[in-house]
Every structure is written in C-alpha cells, then in structure tokens.
C-alpha cells in the first residue's frame, strides 16, 4: 500500500520503567525525538505515528506487547528492546507477522536474524577493541565481573580468549544476580588478586554499586586508582555516569557514540536535541542509535513508498548514511551496523574520548573473521589526547 498522505504506525517498545529504566528511557527518548523531528520537517509525504508500549523491564511482557502493537496499529516496524532476552522473546512474533525489529543496543553477538536490524555494537566492535586498547597499557591479567546473564557470560568468555591469546590469565571471574548490589566479596577478591584491570559487564544498579565500592578501594589503597587499575566497561553510558558521579572518574568505556564526540554530525544532532527536547540532560549511544534507527527507517519508507519489511531492508542495507556517530551502514549479509568504536575516560564533564581508531569496523557477529585465539595484532589506535 502506498504511503502517500498516510500515517505510518511505528512500534516503540522500550522499558521506561523497571530495573533498567535508565537505559530503556534513552532508547525511547531517541526514538520519539527522531519521529517528532521527521514529522515537523515535512520532508516526507507521510507522517510517523508512535505506538508506544512499556514492558516495565519484565521479559515476559515483550512478546505480548509487540503482538498488541502489530494487531492494533498494523505497524510493520518496531524500534525497541534493550536486553537480549527481550529481543529473543519478540523474534517469533516478528516471523509470524512479518515485522522488522530495529534493535539499537550493544549485545554479545552470535545472532543475525533477517527480521532484526542491529544498530548497536557486537563484540568485534566493543569488547575486542576495548581490550586492544587496554592490554598493552595495563597488562593482560584482567578480572571479569558481570551480571549473571548472557551479556556478562559471553562478553567475559570472549575477553578470556583475547587475554589468554595476549599471554595473560584471568585473575578472577564472578557473576552477580541481576539487580544485586552486594559486591563486597568481589572487591575483597580484587584487592587480594591485584589484577591488571577489571572488565565490568554488570548491568544497572549492580554496576553503580561496584563502581562506588571500587572507588572506595582506590581511596584506601592508591594502587587501585583508575589510572593504574581501571574498570573497563562496554555498557556504561552518560545517564549512568551522571548517576554514579565522581566515583566513576577515570574509568574507561567503549562505544560508537559519546555525547562529547567532536564531529560535525554530532554537533548537528545535539542541536536537534536542544531544539526539540530541551529538557534532555544526557545523550547516550542508546539514545543516538535509536534516533539513527528511526531516520534510517524513514529514509527506507520514503525511498520505496511502502512499509513492507523486505523492501525497506533492501533499500537501506549496504548504503552509507549519516548518523550522529558518523557515517553508518547496515551490512547486507548480517543486518548489523558498520560502526567506529571509541574509547573514552569518565570525567566530571562526561566521557572524554582518549582513543579513536577513526576506522569503521565491519560487524562480525559470529567472530568468524577475528582470530581471538592467536596474538592480537599490534595496536594501531590513535591517541588523540
């Protein structure tokens, strides 16, 4: 059906309440901002209509709410999901109803579904570049701490391969139940084992509690200060940094997008944020990637005049487009985004970018073309500060 003059329903499925509301709200805000911007611009001959549902962070709500979006609005495209569990929950519905999910978050890889477009980083774009930066600087005997969940398990497993290939060994590995903030025993073990660094894949409140307790340890024993033994994260973003505050200072994160990214695309994007959502305090990769997803979808709808998923995918995949984090492209073979990882240090003024490869990395969700077991090639990261 032609779209001219129509309202095109777009599903929006983020948990703006519940245990990971801080991150869910970012995806929601980025999506709504892009929809508002596109509708206000009048650049297309259709109007996007957000169909917002809030699963409240409960995995079992996702499939039912996605089904509700499709049944009541006829939406063919859903922007949403934060955790891998929730994404896996909605996939059967996507298959049955021929709906596309635009997933804007980093995840642990080992999936490439034809009806999901992955705009966040996969492991060869997050944990591997992060370790490539950290191992030569801090040593290869890292300590792995994560939430007891697939993201932590799998990211740590990949990190272990990379550390051992570099001649290091795992100083310790601990998992914390989701939402748990009791990290004292882990901090004590780190104090005794003195690892080169800590790779943190904790989620939400567990991560904040850990960062605060580790800062405490650094005050008691200066050899645990961030400059010597940093905490490395693949999922630590601006609103979370604001919540943890000074305790996170000096710790290191990797992401394709940071609010302080000094590019023209980002200045333009932040200008749109300031104009249309002036109440916004922080902008994260989750926000920017959801925003980029809506723009890419709108470009696909406009180019093809239909919201049929295969047609839209055919039009958007394999073409470089401009996004807040720079040029982006959806790789045709696996529906994942080509992204440029950046390494940043947490400061009181947000994330300060310390290394930017300035090289876009093609997504390799199954790590098929990355030798995680042989020695990693020499770091060619360009230190800009």
């Amino acid at each position, binding site marked *: 059906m032609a779209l001219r003059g129509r309202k095109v329903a777009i599903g929006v499925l983020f948990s703006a309440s519940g245990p990971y509301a801080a991150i869910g709200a970012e995806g929601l805000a980025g999506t709504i901002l892009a929809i508002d911007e596109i509708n206000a611009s009048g650049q297309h001959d259709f109007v996007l209509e957000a169909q917002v549902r809030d699963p409240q962070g409960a995995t079992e709500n996702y499939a039912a709410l996605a089904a509700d979006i499709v049944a009541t609005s006829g939406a063919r495209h859903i922007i949403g999901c934060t955790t891998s569990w929730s994404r896996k929950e909605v996939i059967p519905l996507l298959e049955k109803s021929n709906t596309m999910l635009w997933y804007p978050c980093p995840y642990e890889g080992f999936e*490439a579904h034809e009806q999901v477009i992955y705009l966040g980083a996969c492991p060869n774009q997050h944990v591997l570049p992060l370790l490539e930066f950290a191992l030569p600087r801090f040593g290869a005997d890292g300590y792995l701490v994560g939430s007891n969940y697939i993201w932590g398990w799998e990211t740590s497993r990949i990190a272990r*391969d990379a550390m051992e290939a570099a001649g290091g060994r795992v100083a310790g590995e601990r998992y914390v139940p989701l939402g748990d903030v009791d990290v004292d025993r882990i901090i004590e073990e780190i104090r005794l084992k003195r690892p080169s660094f800590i790779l943190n894949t904790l989620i939400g409140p567990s991560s904040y509690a850990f960062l605060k307790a580790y800062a405490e340890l650094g005050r008691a024993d200066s050899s645990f200060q961030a400059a010597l033994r940093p905490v490395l994260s693949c999922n630590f973003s601006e609103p979370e940094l604001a919540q943890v505050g000074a305790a996170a200072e000096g710790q290191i994160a990797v992401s394709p997008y940071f609010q302080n990214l000094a590019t023209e695309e980002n200045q333009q994007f932040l200008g749109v944020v300031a104009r249309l959502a002036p109440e916004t305090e922080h902008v994260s990769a989750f926000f920017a990637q959801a925003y980029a997803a809506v723009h890419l979808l709108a470009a696909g709808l406009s180019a093809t005049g239909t919201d049929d998923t295969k047609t839209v995918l055919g039009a958007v995949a394999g073409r470089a487009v401009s996004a807040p984090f720079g040029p982006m492209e959806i790789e045709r*073979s696996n529906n994942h985004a080509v992204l440029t990882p950046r390494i940043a240090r947490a400061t009181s003024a947000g994330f300060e970018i310390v290394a930017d490869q300035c090289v876009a990395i093609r997504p390799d969700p199954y790590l*098929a073309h990355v*030798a995680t*077991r042989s020695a990693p090639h020499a770091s060619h990261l360009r230190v800009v500060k």
Partner: protein
Amino acid sequence: MTRPAYTPNFDGKKALILHRPHPVVDAITRQLAQLGIFCDTCWPTISASAAGSADLIFFDVDLGHDEQFPWEHGQAPLPAIALIGSEAPGRLAWAISLGADAHLLKPVGSGGVFTALVIASESFARRAAMHSELDALRARLEQREAIAEATACLMLQGNMPAEAAYAQLRREAMTARLTIEAMAEQIVDELRAGHVHHRS
C-alpha cells in the same frame, strides 16, 4: 573447573550441501557465508572432487538414500548434519544409521546452522577419537596370542617360569623401543623362520 569454551571458528572451511535446489539451501548458504564458510551444492550424488575437498556435509533426509554417498554406510569421514523435514520414524532411523553428528529442522530461517556446526564438529571429533581407540584396542587384542606364544617360547628356551619369561619379553621390547605386542610378534616370526637364538 574446566576452562570455558573457546569461540568456535570455521573461517575458510568448505561445506557440501547434498540437497535439491530449494530455499532451505539458500538459507543455509546465507548463514554459512556469515561464518566464512564456502559451500558447494550437490544433488543427487556427490562428485568425488566435492567429497574430497569438503570439511563438512549437510545432507537431505527427506529424499536421501544410501547410494548417494561415496563412503561406507555409517562411516562419513567428515562432520555430517542431517536436514530433516519429515519427522517420520523411518526417515529419522535412516539419518541415524547414516551417522548424523547433528541435525537441522526444515524450514531453515535465520539461525541454527552455527549450533549444528558446533555440535557436529564436537561429536565428529569424539566419533573419530573413539574409532581410532577402538582400532588400537582391536589390534592389541589380536596380538595377545603372539604374547602368549612368545612367552611360552622363552620359557622353553631359557627353562624359566612364566613370570621371568614375560619379564624378559618386556625388557627386550623396551630395549628395542617396540610395544610388547610387536616384540612378541618378532620373536615368534624369528622362531617360525627357524632361527636359533641364544638369549641371555
């Protein structure tokens, strides 16, 4: 505690898909490409060159039959993944008898190939290790007769009890850097050939 698994890697491997042209083949080919695996499609028979260069095989269970395979029934020399549409017991029995290491249910969508490959490779490695251990055990069993015979010969020759004769056999095997079975066969062969030995 055992070490967590390494990331399985199939980059540069070659797969053979024994299936008539069908969307299932396209779906598998797409997934294989993401893993860096090249693939050849064959139907209804496997050419000798394709069989020789392949690292793994996907085979159709719905229309498959024994004559398609250039190897002995149940002895696939590479990891074999069954492509199953009909779950009829007769077809499943055939897939099992052929020695499937893993399976994929049709229709094939966006996932499943990686899992099947990881399980099939592991299961094939175990199958191969078990077969070579079995061959070695069989060979040793056959050689037990030679040990008994050689021990008896040494007993007669040296006029010594069985324990001493066996100890001598073991010593000679060690000196010659042979297995005890191989040493026993050598002694028996020499005696059969009529050589006279004075063993110290």
